[in-house]
């Protein structure tokens, strides 16, 4: 709770810097506009106020973004194609489907890697290497490939979201399943527990903190995947499509609104998982 004051201060400072930058970046444009309109009698105050309320500013003021978001979220019905809720729901659907598939695959692969020795030795270096590869570069190609199979709409984007969330989950869960220390594993052996029993009674519960940490990273990665996929295939809407449309038509306020919607979505997903994690870890008796 003692963090509230520092965080508020920093947020206010960020807002102040944002306003300063907005004036600094937009004022030249506004000055040109005044010159073109033949006006020379404007005061500094006029200039500042005008540059914070431009139609297509280089950097919109925070209040402009807030107004745009309120307009597109509250004042527009969610069924309208202009509504941010409409697009955010599309993105959320792709993200969630992809995330669930990706997380399930990732956990499954982690179980296999931990249980089968030769697979571990041959697969793990590739998994580590795959972390250094910009997987997201594959996104446009996956869309096209799936298109060849007449898979369109949500599926290709969910596939990319799944693909992106899959690797961090695998890596995190392998670490989690390996987290019990040798002492505990030896104890299971003295009980003559089978490999399956050791897994269910020791490895799986011990991996809980890693599970929630991987879920957080996986969900954030799935959202990035969905957004980038929407940029590559923007006909069906979604926050990524709004970003692209905004950048085509120079609608900066629209870009920022879509960006903040995406940020809110990501923060909400990660927050919910974090909350579930804290509850679960508390009940399971992990000391934090």
């Amino acid at each position, binding site marked *: 709770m*003692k*963090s509230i004051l520092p965080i508020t201060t920093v947020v206010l400072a960020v807002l102040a810097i944002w306003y300063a930058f907005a004036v600094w970046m937009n004022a030249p444009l506004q000055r040109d506009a005044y010159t073109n309109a033949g006006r020379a009698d404007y005061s500094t105050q006029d200039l500042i106020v005008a540059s914070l309320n431009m139609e297509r500013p280089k950097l919109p003021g925070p209040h402009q973004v807030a107004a745009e978001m309120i307009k597109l979220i509250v004042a527009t019905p969610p069924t309208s194609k202009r509504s941010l809720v409409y697009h955010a729901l599309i993105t959320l659907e792709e993200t969630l489907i992809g995330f669930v598939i990706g997380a399930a695959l990732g956990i499954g692969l982690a179980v296999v890697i931990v249980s089968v020795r030769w697979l571990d030795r041959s697969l793990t270096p590739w998994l580590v290497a795959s972390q*250094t590869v910009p997987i997201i570069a594959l996104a446009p190609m996956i869309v096209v490939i799936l298109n060849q199979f007449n898979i369109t709409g949500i599926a290709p984007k969910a596939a990319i979201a799944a693909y992106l969330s899959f690797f961090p989950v695998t890596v995190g869960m392998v670490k989690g399943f390996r987290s019990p220390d040798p002492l505990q594993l030896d104890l299971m052996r003295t009980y003559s527990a089978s490999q399956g029993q050791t897994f269910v009674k020791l490895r799986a519960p011990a991996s809980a903190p890693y599970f929630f940490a991987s879920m957080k990273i996986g969900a*954030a990665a799935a959202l990035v995947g969905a957004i980038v996929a929407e940029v590559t295939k923007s006909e069906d809407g979604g926050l990524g499509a709004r970003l692209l449309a905004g950048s085509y038509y120079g609608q900066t306020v629209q870009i920022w609104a879509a960006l903040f919607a995406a940020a809110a979505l*990501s923060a909400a997903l990660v927050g919910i998982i974090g909350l579930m994690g804290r509850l679960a870890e508390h009940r399971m008796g992990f000391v934090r």
Partner: protein
Amino acid sequence: MIDRRMADLVPPFLFGLVVLALWELVVRAAHVPAIILPTPSAIALRFFTSIPTLAADFWQTIKGLLMGYAVGSGAGLVVAVLVDRSLFLQRGLLPLGNLVSALPIVGIAPIMVMWFGFDWPSKAAVVVVMTFFPMLVNAVAGLESASAMEKDLMKTYAASYWQTLVALRLPAALPFVFNALKINTTLAMIGAIVAEFFGTPTVGMGFRISTEVGHLGIDMVWATILVAALAGSLFYALVALIERRATFWHASFRAREA
């Protein structure tokens, strides 16, 4: 010891070969059209015949990437040192830094393209923002990591703040800093490539991928991805190598030598 390391490499190497062979066989046997999945041999052929194009794309992308990586990581480290002096700023900045790290930052690419133009500076700007926060969060944690005993020792030497910083706390923070540098190699690749999806001069790896996908030159897409994968792995390996040299004293490396 070298022998053992080589022996460790054999299973993954064989596994990779088997996967490539299976890929080649399945694609040929099932007559999968090259538009969906080209054979590894076709990709290799395309790679070797288009080296000039791929090299030009690589340089275009790597310019923005390296510049952004250096500025973003450097700024993160400097801000971490500044923030470290004030508990108030730490309490305010760190939760926000953690929050921002989870956000889809690649989304700022269209804005940066608008501000800095189509060429590599806009890509560098995206990379700066993407790499800044992981470095900030890690470096602040790293600066905390010197133990109380060590700090007390510096105090008994009557070391000044700067002396303590340079002789004790920055070296102690190095493992954390290198952790961030390694995370940032991947983030920088992603940022530089995705930013090119939003507009570039007609060169660059992200540009190549998005245009070749447009006219179904899938083998060229794979060749570009191969370049990206090689570059990403080499970049990571280079940072890891420097880390090994710079933090040879750290437990994780000492344990491996024994």
